[in-house]
């Protein structure tokens, strides 16, 4: 039977694992018609606990709706199982929600539970889960919204904590994807370690503040900062590439010279489209030119 009660009479502690505070999808409907579908509760010790209707409850609070319709259920199963049954698809939508669900209900992480929640079971899983749960709420929301997997989150935790939090704060300027967030975090951490720099020193070195201040799209900012970081991360490779590129530019060969820019594969590719006999003569003459051959040899020594 549907009843109504004052919003202050509800307790939402069994749904606090949820990180989805976005109720835009029901905003219009609730503003116009109030809460039509009652929220689901269980009652004990004179308390009314919400087990389904988290968005509706939050929306009511936000829009100042004081009287909330509800129904009460009383199935004879543990509360964690009840919430799991009602919220399974939401819990399964992100690893962060799974982890928060474990912690709110103090479930012990064993192989059976991992199997049920489709998580890998390994020796230091508990340690990893604790580290993730101990992240600030803003970090958890970020990782949840970007859809990081457990493995990806654990990988992110290897990087510098300072950088991690700085990037979270500045995400509005960059709008990182999972991949770009990981790449930037990895490069930044490596550079700080390699040169024993603080985050502030690295930020200054890579022109970070200027990039943020510039009138650019988030994608353009990402691209520029990544380029600055990469230049710092690969000085030897970039210098060698520039040297080879200059040498190529100096060789007057009627052909395109290509090389593996990682320098791992030796040799060069000489590419030319020969359309007429005179094209062929021009190419072979150039290749027989001692000066050009010396230039090519010198260049090949660098690859």
């Amino acid at each position, binding site marked *: 039977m549907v009843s109504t009660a004052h919003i202050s009479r509800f307790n939402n502690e069994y749904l606090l694992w949820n990180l989805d505070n976005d109720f835009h999808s029901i905003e219009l409907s609730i503003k116009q018609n109030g809460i039509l579908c009652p929220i689901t509760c269980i009652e004990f010790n004179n308390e009314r606990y919400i087990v389904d209707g988290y968005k509706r409850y939050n929306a009511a609070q936000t829009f100042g709706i004081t009287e909330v319709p509800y129904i009460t259920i009383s199935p004879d199963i543990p509360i964690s199982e009840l919430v799991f049954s009602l919220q399974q698809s939401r819990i399964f939508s992100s690893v962060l929600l799974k982890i928060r669900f474990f912690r709110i209900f103090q479930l012990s992480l064993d192989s059976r539970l991992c199997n049920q929640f489709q998580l890998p*079971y390994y020796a230091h899983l508990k340690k990893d889960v604790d580290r993730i749960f101990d992240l600030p709420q803003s970090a958890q929301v970020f990782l949840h919204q970007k859809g990081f997997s457990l493995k990806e989150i654990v990988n992110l935790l290897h990087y510098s904590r300072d950088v991690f939090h700085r990037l979270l704060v500045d995400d509005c300027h960059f709008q990182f994807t999972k991949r770009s967030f990981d790449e930037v975090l990895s490069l930044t951490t490596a550079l700080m*370690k390699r040169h024993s720099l603080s985050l502030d020193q690295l930020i200054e070195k890579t022109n970070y503040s200027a990039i943020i201040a510039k009138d650019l799209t988030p994608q353009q900012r990402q691209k520029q900062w990544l380029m600055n970081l990469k230049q710092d991360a690969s000085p*030897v490779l970039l210098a060698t590439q520039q040297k080879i590129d200059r040498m190529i530019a100096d060789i007057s060969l009627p052909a395109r010279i290509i090389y593996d820019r990682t320098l791992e594969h*030796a040799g060069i590719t000489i590419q030319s489209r020969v359309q007429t006999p005179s094209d062929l003569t021009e190419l072979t003459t150039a290749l027989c030119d001692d000066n050009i051959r010396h230039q090519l040899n010198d260049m090949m020594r660098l*690859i």
Partner: protein
Amino acid sequence: MSNTYYRDGKKTVEFVPYKGEKMDTCATIHDEYVCCNVKVLKSVSNCPFDCSYCFLQNYLTNPQLEVVDEHEKLIQEIKSKIKAQPWRFFRIGTWELGDSLALENETGQAQKFIDYFSTVNNAVLELKTKSDVVDPILNCKHNQKTVVSWSMNTDYIIRTEEHKTASLKDRMVAIKKVVDAGYLIGLHFDPMIMYDDWANDYKDLLTQLAHIVPSNQIAWLSIGSLRFNPEQKRLIENNFRGSKLTCQEMVKGSDNKVRYVKPLRIEMYSLMFNKMRELWGQDPFIYLCMERWDMWDKIMDIQPRAIGELDYMFADHFHRFFPSVNPQIPNLDLYMKYQST
């Protein structure tokens, strides 16, 4: 995946029965890199040491430290395989998945292998270690058919990255003992690792070694540099938080492993190669581990293009410099024809 943490598996030794074939080709073999075609006997799995760069972190699915205790069956397998290719000079190491000597006091395994190899004509045993456990093998009758090798690094790298291994000083004492016992010696400078004073430290290391290892007892010297795949990078970063190994300038190769960029590797290898030649002369056999032929060309001015060719070069070197260890003249055609076996 095993739910035993990989470090927990290192704490106790488990003796296990012989199961399946144990002799194989070194796991790092790859078409685009010149591999030396060394054979490996997987008689031990996992290692009591804890080197930050160790590939076992990523490679082993079962982290339990295990030793195969049925050495007769292992020897039987070796026997049948080397008999099947009598023209080949085999190099067989027991270091693929662990350290050849670290557990010798507990297992006595190396002594049994040394004893067996002393009697064979077309193979040498390689015992490679980062330990100083050599006393149990000093009095073995080896006939120079066993090469005792050390994975060597600078004092700084041993202290910061090769956790729980013997110190440089202790390794030097152990090497001297083994030299005095008449064994052939292998020295592997792999992985070379870059840090601020790497060049001076590696040169000093070679100079110290040249005082105790005579040229005529050197079976081989190898040079290689730090490399790891992306999964291992994550594991190093997770298991060794303070390590700077993964933050250097590296590029990914065709084998999906990252290495220092080529100009840096050329600088490192050239320094080592030139110093080795200066200290030990032209005779010792020096090779690069898992590099393309063009690196050999740039560093040593030789161009082995195939696995069979390098395998042959080892056999030829032994025949010329240690004829009692490899008495037969190697046939390049056979090495090339059967290079993938």
